[in-house]
Each structure stands twice: as structure tokens, then as C-alpha cells.
């Protein structure tokens, strides 16, 4: 996509293409490369990057592309042992060197020690950064076999990771240098209650990801495959007067060009109430990048050249680029159906808020602002579609909710779901940004149907920003009442959200922003007025915590202000108000297990809170913040009678192993691993003997997807159920064999025991017997939550069969000369029920904390007149390895009666409190509170009064303490 192609660029392109047509393109050159010890010859374009040659010509797809601009390091390979970004290097320039890719590291099938360490320490989540990270580590260790922690961090500073928070990666490198170090005992490693559950098994997919063998969507190479690209609007708001694709269609190598007239007019989206997106814009574009046309061509370059040849005539319309601007009287309207640009409006009122304000000893009113942020998984969105001649469609898509992709493709393209196969291959993270059907999904299918060839479409990093779906910017006004003993009486929350041009998850996000404020503290009276506003910016969506982290930041900041007003210790204030087991909130959320107060006690003790709070020197601070999150949503996104999660477990014919078939998508968070652990536990098999096929609709039954932190609980219950049914099927045959009632059999230690205690048959032998007698040994399972929540409008949002809780403490150091905030330590105590896999659980917490730290301190999508200023990884700043703080992650003992083996969620919950914890720690450090995210050095310095107050610059909203 080249949305901001200026007239000058277009003219230049036309000139150059005319020249290319006259002279013919420059000829391919034959390059001789040495890759992984082998001499190879490839004929490529002389300006081909090493990355493209490795991935396309040599099919060495372990080397990834995360940004194409030398920022992320996913494309790292070694050139004569030194790390380089293969995306910035021409293959022609690598001819004298020995090139090492990730595929060259493991020899004879054995993992290289660095790969082994990455697998064993839990350093691999989505794995998209892992090949580059491992090679960067190798370059370091080859030069410096015993690096210090600082040297490790600096050597890895060019390899961004969004999942792990780096702490385990740094540990992995240290372990390679010091193999004698004992294995880390993870907090929460279980006693002997279970055999497989509660143990820190390495992730199922980690070895493949460490070696570059894992196949991500963008790694798939099909015969005849074309590359597709989208043409986006260069204007934030315009009428499309005409589109001329004739020149593009005439370009050799172009197989198809489509515009609005070639695609169904049916609109799509996430919430049925607001399907407002078009596959390709027909008459109006509402943000820069809003797509008008799509092209399929023989390669990326040809597709890009074709885009340049599409001539679009626009009538530029005035746009709105901020909440207040969009709501102003007479502001330009984005959609006729959203008068005043109000996309969603919410009014909730529980208890008697006014009476509580009248009765209270203290009423505070404060305003906070959160920024537009992006998920930034290392893998950009990608889809690959194939259309069979009989009309069946297969789509491989990097998507968190393949079921919704299937649903929307079926709905919009009018193809029955059963004829659409959706496969989610290995996936490089999502964090909520890949939870809906995209234009890549629709257009790849339409182009595949039109051309008869497979079509692969990928977003560039920049395009991921233009696609949007990141965190909504919010303005949060909180009026809160308390008694002088700290008892919270009421909250009135008024929240405005900048939704961007379309709805996406926005209705849900808008509800979540308010409704979760009734947790994790008891709050008898609650009023929430919310508005989600449309602006001419890319649509916002469901980023980790979906709408809740910023209001948490606001409320947790305000709680510290209340604590100060009342002279109560901030942790004590929170403890006095903590939700308890079996509470029901004012807005009808039914709490089941709840060990929140123990979380506060634990984090208070482990962080040394009492020794530090109020005793640290100026510039050092410690802050508390808490959160509560759902273990899956109580209701699906569209009305459906399907189970929310379902699974099949099948024992092999010889009984030696089992396979789980589950729709639940592993997006890097490790769901495949925990589901295998649960199945193994139930079947009495070893972890190694259970494998999984997930997210392939041809063979796996439906699961709603990896959002709302639902998989451990929902899919876990389905898998648990399926495994139990598989075991029951085997038990029936054993009972028949022994002529005893099936329900009299005892199953323990992986074997059936006769009621008399005499006979014993191992599950393996029994399963083989069962297959011989009755054919395939399968069990199926499903899970849907019971009806939940109240009867009012929007009551469904925030309901869940179980809630997780956590308390977090951050410690910071503030450089009061430059305003730089450094988080030195995070302490997190979590109630997530039974821990299925402590290593992956802490991995989720660590990743959440570091992601939240980035949002607290730097991350912000900045726009000017509707154009994103920083659509890249060097000005949108996510944390790097040197930023990794010390992380102390704890779990409290907890058991949820409805969860599989007692488990609850952790994937998003840990991200909720982070911004509040950092903000509270900064306020504690410098005595001034910053109420707008992110807490940049400039804002800190302004808060300290060190920048001239009248100087132009970012917001200076502060509260004096």
C-alpha cells in the first residue's frame, strides 16, 4: 500500500515504469551465496534483499520479517558471525560472506545449546522474534562466552520481543554461559496434587520455533502463489469520485485488480449491531489507509508497481481527529448512522450514587487521559487463501479468532461455513489486534477465486498502524465517594473513547471501559456514562485488557489520591475494600473464587512495601495498583447457539499417545501446551505423549477464539470434558473385559484398577484394546458458561464464569534532570486459580508487565491532521531488552470450582494494573502526579516545573499531592 503517494511520486513512478517498459526491467543476476555452510546459486533481481532471497528463493523461512526497516531484528542472520538485519542488506552484498540462518544452527536434529536454553527457560512464546534473538545471542556468546547481564541486554537491544518481557531470554543466554546453574524453580510449582498439571513443561511448539521450523502463515509457499496488496487512501476523509485500474491491469505480472464493484456490498465488522466496514471503500474513505482497491501479482514488487498505476480521483472532505473535535457542534460526520459522531452511548446507574455522594466524608473528582496505543505483535497481519475449483475455500490466517473469520467470510461472501476451511498456522502474537476478519482475509479469498491461484497478503508494519485496532484513547472523569475509614461508597465514571473511523470491537470496548470498575473493590453505587466517538483515524479495537487498563490507571491513581486525603496507607485502603468470594457486584457480576486480599498481603510482604513506602529518597518511588479480569466472556460476539469451546480427544490405535483436536488458537500464549497438559492429566499419560492439532476448521471443532482471556477456562473445560469422555470410552471396554461395572473401575497412576484391587490395565493397553473392539477411541467435549449477568442493556459485557485478581507493586527511579523514568522492579501477586503451567503463567505476567510499562512510559500513536506520524518501530517505542526490569511474579493459592482443575485466566489480567502502578510509583517518587499517559520524560520534567510553563508542548495535566 502506498497511501500517501504524492503527485510527484506518482509522476516519478509513471516515468520510471515507462522507462522500464521501454528498456525492459534490469535483468536478474546470478548470485553465489554461502548459506549455512553450503554454496548456493540463485538468480534474483540485483536489488533483492538478503531477507527476500532467503525466504523466497531459498525457502529458508525461519528468518522473519517484522518491520522491514531494521528496527525489530526478527530478520537477523549472521554474516561471518556478526548479526545483521537481512531486510536492509542486499543479497548481492552478502556474496563474500558466510551466512548463518536459524536453520543452520541445529545439527543432526539436535538443538543448539542456545536453542535448548530458550526452550527450557520459557523464552519462546509466539516465537516470531526467536530465530533472530537466538542468532543475536550466538554472535554475542561466540565473541564473549561469559557476558554480563548488561552485555546481554545490549547485545539483544536490536531484537524486539513483545511477548516475554525479555527476562527469560536474558536468563537463557546466561544459562548457556553457565550450564551449571540449577534449573529455576518457578513460583507456584505444584505439590503432588496432579501429575502433569501444575508442572513447568516446555511449550509444545518451542523446539520448532527455536529452530525456524514452525510454519507461520507468511512462511507458506504454494505452487503458483500470487502476492496481494491493498491500495489505501492518502486522505483522512474523502469522497471517491472515480477509480481507474486499467493501467494497473495492463502491467505484466498483474493477475487481478479489484475495487468495490468486484466485491460484495455487504458490510462487516465485529458486533452485529454495527457492521460498518466495507471490503473495499465504494464512495467514501474515512481514514488514511482506508482501502479502495486490491491487486494480485506475481510478486510484491509488481503488486506495488500496479498500485502506483491505479488512478483514484478524490474530493477531499474535512475530517475530525480528536474526541472533542468530533463531538463539536457542526463537526463533519463520518457516518450518517452515528449522529454527532457518537458511535456508542452508554448509561448505567446502579444503587443510589447521589445519596452516596451526599453521605460521604470525601468526594473527589479527577480527570485522566489515556493514549492511542498499538498491540505491536512482531508478526504483522497475514492471510493466504486458496479457492478450489469446486468452490471450496481454504484460508490460512494469522488470526486470534478464526471462527469469526469463518463466520464473516461465510456471511459476506455467501458461502456456507462448511465450505470454508480456516487454518491458523503458527502465529506471531496478537494481543487483540488480530481478533477480527480483516481486508486481507476478504481480499485474499476474492482474489484467489478470481485468479484461480493462491494469494498471500501481508501488512507491512506501517499498514498495521493504518489498519489500526489498537487501544482507544480515553478521557476518564471519575467522581468517587468514600467514608473517612476508606470505605468506597460510589463512583460516577464518565468516559469518552476515540474510536477512529469504524466500530470494530468498539461497542464492547466502550462498555468494558466502565463496567469493570466495579471490580476488584466493593462498590455499592456505580454510575457510568460512556461515549465512543468516531474520528478520521484508523479504527480502534480490543487491545490486551480491552478498554479496561486506562480506567484502571485512572481509578488506581485516584485511589492513591483518596488514600493521601484520608491518611490511609494505599495498600490498606485497597484491602479494606477488597472483593470477597461469592460477592455480587452492583452491576451483577457474580464473583466465584476470589483471593484478592491475599494478593495484596503477598505483594505487600514481598515488595518490602512497609520498609520502602515513604522512606525512599526523592526520585525513587513505589506504587501499588490492582486489577480484576474475566476468564472468558459470558456471551459470544454474535448470537449463536454453538458451544463457546469444543474439543475432541483421540487416543492412538496402539494407545501410546493422544491427540487433542481443538479450535482454540494458540497465538503464542501457550494454549496448546496447557490444553495438552490437561488432557494428559485426565488420561494418565505423560505430557510428551499428548499432542495437539488446533485451529484448523477442517478437523478441529469450533472455539470462539483467543480473546477475553478465555482459553484456559473455556477450552480447558472442553478438553477436560473430551479427555474424560475418551477415558470413559476406554473404561467401558475394560469393564467389559473384566466383566465388572464401568463405574466401579478405579483410575489412578495411568491405569484402570478392578474394584477388587487385583487387576490393573494401563491406559495404553486399554486404549489399544478399545480400538480393537470398537474402533476409533475418541471423546468429545464442549463448554459454554451458564447464563450470567443482569437484565439491563449491556449487562452481558463483563460477565464471566470466573474472575482473576491481582495486585502489583512497581518501583521506579526518576532522573529529575531529564525526566526519565526507569522501572527497576515489578512485583505481581496473582489469583488465577490452579496454575496449569507455572513457567508459561509467569511468562504471561512478565510480558504483560513489560508491555504495560511501554504504554506507561513511551508508547503512543501520534497523529497530525489524520496522518500517523510514527507508524514504525523506531518512533512508536516498545520496550527493548535493556529496559527489562526485575520481575517478581507470585501466585496465591486459589481454586475456582468451575475452572478446569480449578484454573482461571492470566493472559490479560496482569496487564490491567501496570499503568496505575507505574503512575503511582512516579507520583511517590517526585511528589507530583501525572494524569496523562504516557508518562514521558518531558511530562515529568514539566510536572517538576523545569520546563518553562508557557512553552508549547504536550499536556501538562498534573495534580499536586
Amino acid at each position, binding site marked *: 500500500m*502506498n497511501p500517501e*503517494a504524492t503527485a510527484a*511520486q506518482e509522476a516519478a*513512478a509513471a516515468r*520510471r*515504469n515507462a*522507462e*522500464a517498459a521501454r528498456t525492459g*526491467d534490469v535483468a536478474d543476476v546470478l548470485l553465489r551465496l554461502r548459506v549455512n555452510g553450503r554454496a548456493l546459486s540463485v538468480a534474483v533481481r540485483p*536489488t533483492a*534483499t538478503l531477507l527476500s532471497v532467503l525466504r523466497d528463493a531459498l525457502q529458508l523461512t525461519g528468518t522473519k520479517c517484522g518491520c*522491514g*526497516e*531494521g528496527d525489530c*531484528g526478527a530478520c*537477523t542472520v549472521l554474516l561471518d558471525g*556478526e*548479526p*545483521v*538485519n537481512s531486510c*536492509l*542488506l*542486499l543479497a*548481492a*552484498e552478502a556474496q*563474500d560472506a558466510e551466512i548463518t540462518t536459524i536453520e543452520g544452527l541445529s545439527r543432526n536434529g539436535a538443538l543448539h545449546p542456545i536453542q535448548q536454553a530458550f526452550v527450557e527457560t520459557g523464552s519462546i512464546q509466539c516465537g516470531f522474534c526467536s530465530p533472530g534473538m537466538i542468532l543475536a545471542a550466538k*554472535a*554475542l556468546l561466540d565473541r564473549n562466552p561469559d557476558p554480563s547481564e548488561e552485555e546481554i*541486554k*545490549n547485545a*539483544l*537491544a*536490536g*531484537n*524486539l520481543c513483545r511477548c516475554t518481557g525479555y527476562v527469560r531470554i536474558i536468563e537463557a543466554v546466561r544459562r548457556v554461559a553457565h550450564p551449571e546453574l540449577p534449573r529455576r524453580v518457578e513460583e507456584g510449582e505444584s505439590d503432588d496434587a496432579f501429575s502433569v498439571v501444575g508442572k513447568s513443561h516446555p511449550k509444545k511448539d518451542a523446539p520448532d520455533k527455536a529452530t525456524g521450523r514452525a510454519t507461520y502463515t507468511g512462511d507458506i509457499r504454494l505452487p503458483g502463489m500470487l502476492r496481494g496488496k491493498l491500495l489505501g487512501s492518502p486522505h483522512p476523509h474523502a469522497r471517491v469520485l472515480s477509480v481507474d485500474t486499467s493501467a494497473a491491469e495492463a502491467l505484466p505480472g498483474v493477475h487481478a485488480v479489484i475495487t468495490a464493484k468486484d466485491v460484495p456490498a455487504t458490510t462487516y465488522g465485529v458486533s452485529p449491531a454495527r457492521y460498518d466496514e466495507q471490503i473495499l471503500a465504494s464512495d467514501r474513505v474515512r481514514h488514511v489507509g482506508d482501502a479502495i482497491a486490491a491487486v494480485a501479482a506475481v510478486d510484491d*514488487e509488481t503488486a506495488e*508497481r500496479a498500485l*502506483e498505476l491505479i488512478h483514484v480521483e478524490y474530493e477531499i472532505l474535512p475530517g475530525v481527529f480528536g474526541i472533542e473535535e468530533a463531538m463539536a457542534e457542526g463537526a463533519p460526520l463520518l457516518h450518517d448512522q452515528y449522529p454527532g459522531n457518537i458511535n456508542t452511548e452508554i448509561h448505567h446507574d446502579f444503587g443510589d450514587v447521589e445519596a452516596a455522594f451526599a453521605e460521604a466524608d470525601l468526594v473527589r473528582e479527577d480527570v485522566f487521559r489515556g493514549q492511542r496505543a498499538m498491540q505491536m505483535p512482531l508478526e504483522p497481519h497475514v492471510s493466504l487463501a486458496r479457492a478450489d475449483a469446486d468452490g471450496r475455500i481454504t484460508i490460512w490466517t494469522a488470526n486470534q479468532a478464526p471462527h469469526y473469520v469463518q463466520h464473516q467470510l461465510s456471511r459476506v461472501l455467501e458461502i456456507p461455513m462448511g465450505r470454508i476451511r480456516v487454518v491458523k498456522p503458527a502465529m506471531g502474537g496478537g494481543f487483540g489486534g488480530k481478533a477480527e476478519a480483516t481486508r486481507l482475509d476478504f481480499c485474499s479469498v476474492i482474489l484467489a477465486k478470481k485468479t484461480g491461484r493462491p494469494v498471500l497478503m501481508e501488512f507491512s508494519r506501517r499498514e498495521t498502524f493504518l489498519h489500526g485496532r489498537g487501544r482507544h484513547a480515553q478521557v476518564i472523569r471519575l467522581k468517587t465517594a468514600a467514608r473517612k475509614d476508606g470505605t468506597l461508597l460510589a463512583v460516577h465514571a464518565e468516559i469518552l473513547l476515540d474510536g477512529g473511523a469504524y466500530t470494530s470491537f468498539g461497542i464492547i470496548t466502550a462498555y468494558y471501559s466502565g463496567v469493570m470498575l466495579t471490580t476488584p473493590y466493593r462498590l455499592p453505587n456505580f454510575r457510568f456514562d460512556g461515549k465512543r466517538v468516531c474520528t478520521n483515524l484508523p479504527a480502534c479495537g480490543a487491545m490486551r485488557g480491552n478498554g479496561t487498563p486506562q480506567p484502571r490507571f485512572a481509578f488506581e491513581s485516584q485511589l492513591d489520591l483518596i488514600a493521601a486525603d484520608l491518611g490511609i496507607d494505599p495498600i490498606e485502603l485497597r484491602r479494606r475494600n477488597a472483593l470477597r468470594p461469592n460477592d455480587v457486584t452492583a452491576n451483577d457480576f457474580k464473583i466465584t473464587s476470589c483471593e484478592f486480599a491475599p494478593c495484596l498481603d503477598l505483594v505487600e510482604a514481598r515488595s518490602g512495601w512497609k520498609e520502602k513506602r515513604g522512606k525512599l529518597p526523592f526520585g525513587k518511588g513505589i506504587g501499588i495498583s490492582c486489577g480484576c479480569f474475566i476468564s472468558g466472556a459470558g456471551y459470544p460476539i454474535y448470537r449463536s447457539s454453538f458451544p463457546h469451546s469444543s474439543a475432541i480427544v483421540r487416543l492412538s490405535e496402539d494407545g501410546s499417545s493422544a491427540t487433542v483436536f481443538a479450535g482454540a488458537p494458540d497465538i503464542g500464549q501457550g494454549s496448546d501446551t496447557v490444553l495438552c497438559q490437561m488432557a494428559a492429566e485426565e488420561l494418565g499419560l505423560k505430557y510428551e505423549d499428548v499432542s495437539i492439532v488446533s485451529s484448523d476448521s477442517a478437523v478441529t471443532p469450533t472455539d470462539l477464539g483467543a480473546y477475553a482471556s478465555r482459553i484456559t477456562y473455556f477450552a480447558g473445560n472442553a478438553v477436560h470434558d473430551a479427555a474424560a469422555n475418551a477415558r470413559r470410552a476406554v473404561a467401558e471396554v475394560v469393564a467389559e473385559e473384566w466383566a465388572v461395572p464401568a463405574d466401579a473401575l478405579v483410575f489412578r497412576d495411568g491405569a484402570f484398577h478392578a474394584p477388587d484391587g487385583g487387576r490393573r490395565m494401563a491406559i495404553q493397553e486399554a486404549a489399544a484394546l478399545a480400538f480393537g473392539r470398537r474402533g476409533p477411541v475418541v471423546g468429545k467435549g464442549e463448554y459454554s458458561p451458564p447464563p450470567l449477568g443482569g437484565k439491563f442493556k449491556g449487562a452481558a459485557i463483563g460477565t464471566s464464569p470466573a474472575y482473576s485478581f491481582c495486585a502489583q507493586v512497581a518501583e521506579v527511579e526518576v532522573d529529575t534532570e*531529564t525526566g*526519565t523514568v526507569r522501572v527497576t522492579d515489578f512485583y505481581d501477586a496473582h489469583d488465577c486459580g490452579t496454575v496449569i503451567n507455572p513457567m508459561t503463567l509467569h511468562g504471561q505476567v512478565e510480558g504483560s508487565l513489560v508491555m504495560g510499562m511501554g504504554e506507561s*512510559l513511551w508508547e503512543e500513536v*501520534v497523529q497530525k491532521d489524520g496522518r500517523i*506520524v510514527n507508524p514504525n518501530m*523506531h*518512533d512508536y*517505542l516498545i*520496550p*527493548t*531488552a*535493556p*529496559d527489562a526490569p526485575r520481575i517478581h511474579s507470585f501466585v496465591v493459592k486459589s481454586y475456582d470450582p468451575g475452572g478446569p482443575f480449578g484454573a482461571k485466566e492470566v493472559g490479560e489480567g496482569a496487564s490491567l494494573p501496570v499503568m496505575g502502578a507505574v503512575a503511582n510509583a512516579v507520583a511517590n517518587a517526585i511528589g507530583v502526579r501525572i494524569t496523562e499517559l504516557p508518562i514521558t*520524560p*518531558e511530562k515529568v*520534567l514539566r510536572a517538576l516545573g*523545569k*520546563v*518553562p510553563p508557557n*512553552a*508549547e*508542548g504536550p499536556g501538562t495535566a498534573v495534580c499536586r499531592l
Partner: protein
Amino acid sequence: MTTTGIEFHRPTSLEEALTILRDAGREGIAKAGGTDVMLLLKHEAVRPRVMVGLSALSELKGIRRDKSVIAIGAGTTIAALERDAVLAEHAQGLLDAAHRMATAQIRTVATVGGNLASAAACGDLAPVLIALDATIHLRSAAGERELPLTEFFTGPRTTVLAPDELITRIEFPAAKKRSASSYAKFGYRGGSQIAVVAAAAQVNRDGSVAERVRLVMGAVAPIPFLVKGASVLTGRPVEGAALEAACAAAASECRPISDIRGSEAYRRTISSVVARQALESAWRRSAGHES
């Protein structure tokens, strides 16, 4: 990025490179490490017909000390700077800058000449090299010229370099006894940091006072500039009121812009902080410098 139609050459001699560039005229572009040029290509900020890769020109690589002059070939990579013993002794400021530039991957291929030619206002090497009194040597098929590095930059991303001209080397005097340089950089993240404000200092010490101080600011003006007011330190110890005055001069003489990386007022405010870090570091080093 569309590179269709771009001819790529990878000459093995400087003469050959210069000939190709001469023939290509305004349609040619030189590519050293390529970490900047490739981005320009990807963003279509340049659309050359001919691209000349310089990575095979061994004559442009290497760091040499010839008596009192240190010469760095334009093709020398940043990674090579980082590991060079001569520089470690004579131009520690350059090592400060090299260590903190971009990422290990970029440093492997990015070159000294490329960094200067890209002329980004936030470039890391230029402030130090200016502090070190560097001259820059340019060559085209028509001949050679040299000029003080201060005269090389004409604005953000613009230099006096002609389209057919290449940087061949940088020269600067080797550090005298009791002199030292430093580079201080302020950026946001811990890694892969882009300078928001940078300062380089070079101090010649005479006993307990500075005989000569050069303070150069980066990222706070269209091009790196020498702080005139730093002359207040001449003949004084780099401390106390004189140090504060020099740092205040850095702040008042800078001409920063407001952009995503910081407002004009903020950059100006911390200019004095970063200037002080550079001056104090160079002053401290000059005390311990035995060569």
C-alpha cells in the same frame, strides 16, 4: 519498496565506483552499509536509476594512525570503531557514540561515511568528530577535496557532497597527553536509541584547568554545532560556575525543533544537562589520560 529498474553495481575499486557515479549523474546513488539508503528506497524518498554498493571497496576500510593524525576510512563499520584499540586510546568519545548507536545489527554494516553522508540531525558520529576537529576527505572522478567537518553539513539531510562524490576518509589529530573526548546522548528507550539531545566534548587539560574545550551539540539544531559559549571554560577547571555557564550556553545557542521526539522547550531544557554529562565525562577522562 519497488526497486524495479534500478541497476546495482558493486565495484571493487574506488576508481570504478567514481566512474559509475560520474556517468550516472543525478540518477545515481551510493550505498555504503545501506541502513539509511535502504529506508529511503523503501519509503520512496529516493528513486535512483543506478545504485553503487561500496561494501567491496577495501581501500575505504580501516583505521590508521599516522603519527599525530588518525584516519578512519569512510567504509569502516561502526562495529569496527567499537573494537578499535587506537580509538579506545585516542578518541573515546567516538567509542561512546559507536557503542550507543542503533543496534548491534545496524552497527555490523553501517559505516562512518554513510552515517555522515545521511546527515540526520540526530546522527551520532558528527558531534564527536566535530569536537575532535575532524576534516572530511571527498573524492570524485574529477578530483579530491578536503574540508573541515563543520563545513560539510548544510542542513538536515543535506551536505556539500555532490552526487558523483564519495567520502573517502575522516581525519583528526590524535589525542594529546591529558586530552580526552566524550559523547553523551539522551534518548528514551534503553536500547536502539535515537538521540533526542546529544553532546560531544573534547577537553585538553593543562594541569588543573582546561586549555581548550570543544563542546558540540547534536539533534538540537539543523546540523551539529560548536557551542561558542563553551569558551568560558578556557583556562578554568571544568566545574562550578564556568561549567554551568558553558551548559547554559549550550541551551541558549541550540535551535531545536518540536517533533514527536520532544518539544523545542524540552530539548532546550535538557540540552544543558546532556552538555554537562559530556563535559564532565571528558574532563574526568582527561585527568586519567596517560598517553
